[in-house]
């Protein structure tokens, strides 16, 4: 009798507790797909950093009738006939649009490295040192500004590399292995895209080299990923060795060009020493009579990347042209209205408001707001079946616009040096952590508005939804108590303005 009771309750409980267990995805759930278009003219599109698709040179490929090619084809067939389970998994993982996977890897690294340095025992702070990346605090601290830049270089290198690949594909028109030997059944949707050079290898090599520069401690992890990716092209039956070698050459060369720009774009000076940071603060105080202060314990002596606003922009001629006017002075009627709104929300936040605040928070330990938008765009690229070249183009314009938005926003933040609500409103507490930089304008709003404009341009059917998301992301910071409404509203306008510069360029790159 009693045993039965116990068993019944226990069995019921187990079923109840686990009846709704969700499968937890660790990556985008997509398989290879047939591309909506091949963009045969893609080799003539205007790249971002290269002069054109022919700037990087690769060897003229051997003809498919040559012995060299036949040997390579035989090696491919042997590999395909002896696939291990791990090799089959690699084929499934990388798919025929690996641009998406490398973007996903970048987001994961951003989340892994988005950890803020802790104070030392004596109350001081040590900054990550790119010259000694493994020493705590590890380099990098992948905050939103850092991540926006890493993603921009990644996407630009992928895009330029693929323009180059497309140029040679349609210059040489070397067939895919399965078109040379019809006994070969490729693992991916069949396409008439010429095989030389391997677009997958371009993406693998360029992504590896850019991400290794951005996340130096991941060098070995990234090298292993790239090696597996390149090998998978043969295992999948889509590229022979010389396709892959030529693609790899383009990837390596285009990454060099991108990283040469990165070395001199001003990022290394963005995190200033305290005297410079103090002088920036003093200048703002002289100009406007207010200043932002870090409210942490112990106080962080320098805000996050005070000179990120001076980093070289991609498509805006100079940062001043997109700098908004000043915010209302603390204590003014307009300020008091905005402050009261925050206090009213905090007093009685609804479950819906709390969810919006958390949904867009993308704070420490996550892929940041730029990462969030990349993730959404990745899903759209899959939905719209974009080929790798057009995917890379979309990410390139997205991430240039987002990084430019970040540079502009940071310029504004440190130019006006405006206090956060927890500083300006006595006793105010929040449900989100307040970031270590001035309030005006809101980074989330600026990043998101810029991102949504690029989405609206590339996917007109998604424009309304994307802009609504950007508005919600902006609102989320008000609901979280860490931004005033004017930070968010001006940030949205600023992000839209900044994005236009990238979109004007996109409209003239030959892809329309």
């Amino acid at each position, binding site marked *: *009798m*009693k*045993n039965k*009771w*116990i068993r019944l*309750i*226990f069995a*019921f*409980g*187990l079923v*109840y*507790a*686990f009846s*709704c*267990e*969700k499968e*937890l*995805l*660790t*990556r*985008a759930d997509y398989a290879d797909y047939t591309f909506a278009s091949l963009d045969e003219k893609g080799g003539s599109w205007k790249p971002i950093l290269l002069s054109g698709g022919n700037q990087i040179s690769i060897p003229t490929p051997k003809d498919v009738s040559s012995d060299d090619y036949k040997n390579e084809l035989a090696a491919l067939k042997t590999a395909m006939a002896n696939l291990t389970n791990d090799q089959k998994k690699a084929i499934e993982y990388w798919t025929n649009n690996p641009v998406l996977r490398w973007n*996903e890897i970048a*987001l*994961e690294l951003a*989340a*892994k490295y988005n*950890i*803020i*340095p*802790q*104070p030392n025992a004596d109350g001081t702070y040590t900054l990550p040192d790119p010259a000694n990346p493994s020493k*705590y*605090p590890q380099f990098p601290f992948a905050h939103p500004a850092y991540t926006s830049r890493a993603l921009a270089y990644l996407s630009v290198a992928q895009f330029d590399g693929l323009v180059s690949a497309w140029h040679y594909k349609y210059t040489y028109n070397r067939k895919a292995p399965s078109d040379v030997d019809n006994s070969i059944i490729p693992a991916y949707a069949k396409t008439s895209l010429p095989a030389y050079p391997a677009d997958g290898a371009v993406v693998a090599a360029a992504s590896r080299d850019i991400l290794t520069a951005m996340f130096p401690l991941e060098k070995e992890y990234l090298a292993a990923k790239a090696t597996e990716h390149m090998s998978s092209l043969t295992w999948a039956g889509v590229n022979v060795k010389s396709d892959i070698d030529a693609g790899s050459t383009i990837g390596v060369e285009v990454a060099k060009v991108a990283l040469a720009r990165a070395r001199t774009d001003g990022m290394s000076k963005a995190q200033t020493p305290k005297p410079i940071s103090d002088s920036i603060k003093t200048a703002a105080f002289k100009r406007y009579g207010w200043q932002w202060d870090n*409210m*942490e*314990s*112990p106080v962080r002596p320098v805000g996050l990347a005070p000179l990120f606003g001076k980093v070289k922009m991609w498509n805006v001629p100079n940062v001043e042209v997109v700098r908004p006017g000043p915010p209302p002075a603390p204590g003014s009627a307009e300020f008091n209205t905005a402050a009261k709104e925050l206090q009213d929300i*905090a007093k009685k936040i609804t*479950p819906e408001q*709390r*969810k919006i605040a*958390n*949904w867009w*928070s*993308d704070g*420490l*330990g*996550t*892929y940041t707001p730029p*990462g*969030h938008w990349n*993730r959404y765009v990745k899903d759209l690229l899959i939905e719209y079946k974009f080929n790798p070249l057009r995917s890379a183009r979309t990410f390139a314009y997205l991430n240039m616009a987002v990084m430019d938005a970040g540079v502009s926003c940071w310029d504004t933040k440190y130019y006006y040096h405006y206090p956060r609500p*927890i500083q300006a409103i006595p006793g*105010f*507490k*929040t*449900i989100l*952590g*307040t970031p270590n930089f001035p309030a005006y304008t809101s980074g989330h709003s600026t990043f998101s508005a810029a991102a949504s404009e690029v989405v609206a341009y590339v996917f007109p059917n998604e424009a309304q939804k994307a802009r609504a998301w950007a508005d919600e992301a902006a609102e989320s910071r008000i609901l979280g108590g860490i931004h005033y409404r004017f930070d968010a509203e001006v940030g949205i306008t600023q992000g839209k303005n900044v994005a236009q510069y990238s979109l004007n360029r996109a409209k003239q790159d030959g892809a329309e």
Partner: protein
Amino acid sequence: MKNHFQYILVLAVLLSQLGAVFAQTPSDDLMMKKREICLAASYETGSWNQYWEGTRLRENANIGTFSREIIMPMFAYGITDKINLLAGVPYIATDATGGQLVGAKGLQDLGIAVKAELFNRQVGPGKVSFLTTAGFSFPVSNYLSDYMPFSIGLKTREVTLRGILQYRFDNGIYARGAFAHLWRGQSKVERDYYYNNGSYYSEWMDVPNALNYHGAVGVWLFNNSLKLEANYMAVHCLSGDDIRIYNAPQPTNKMSFDQVGFFGQYYFKGIKAIQGLGILAYYSKVIDGRNMGKFQSVGAGVTYQFKL
């Protein structure tokens, strides 16, 4: 044996997804008679100013001293002399002296459990008893688990199966041990990406299962009116990740702790006007942990018991 608030404390373990943080005697040998009811309420306050980040004990000035208050109404009922039904739901409020994050408060999880005495026999100079408890709990409010350390709970369903073994000498001295397995489900959070030693694209977080150990020695005095006990209790998660340096905890963490405590209770047996009334008080201190605050807590409660 007419004291029943232990049920409550058993229940507190079943209910608390932090794993009986606020239960001083999570398991014992006591059973209510058929058709007896026990109503109880307790108040607990606890705090910490250090926490384990992984296995490293640290401070954080942006939290300062963290505090938690719990009000716990409970109910127990004797279905038969050998089978009891237990239920309860805590109201929890959290706060901190440092930083600018606001505390959380609300009703946590409703727990329901059945406890059965499977064995009770005189062996030598005392009695051996063996009992088992099966329970489950589920969140009853829209609190957020992904707001640690302020979250009031892990916001997931939990199933517990516990075995309790006690030897009680006829002179009132006893020793008891209990072992439980806690199966936890997933917790829905308010974002669809998080990092748990890798990317997760989901609104759900896996909350690790755990084992719960308990040991106690004590004595009943004054004709079974006063009970004094020293106890040890531990919850060890079976999986989970560690809090990353200076990062916030999250429900996927491997949260474990060991604590020691004292417990006392008194029944007003001789006074007819307050027949059925009892009081209790306890203290506990976490002595080791992982991804948990180093809590010290005190609690007190009243119980009232009657027959239908």
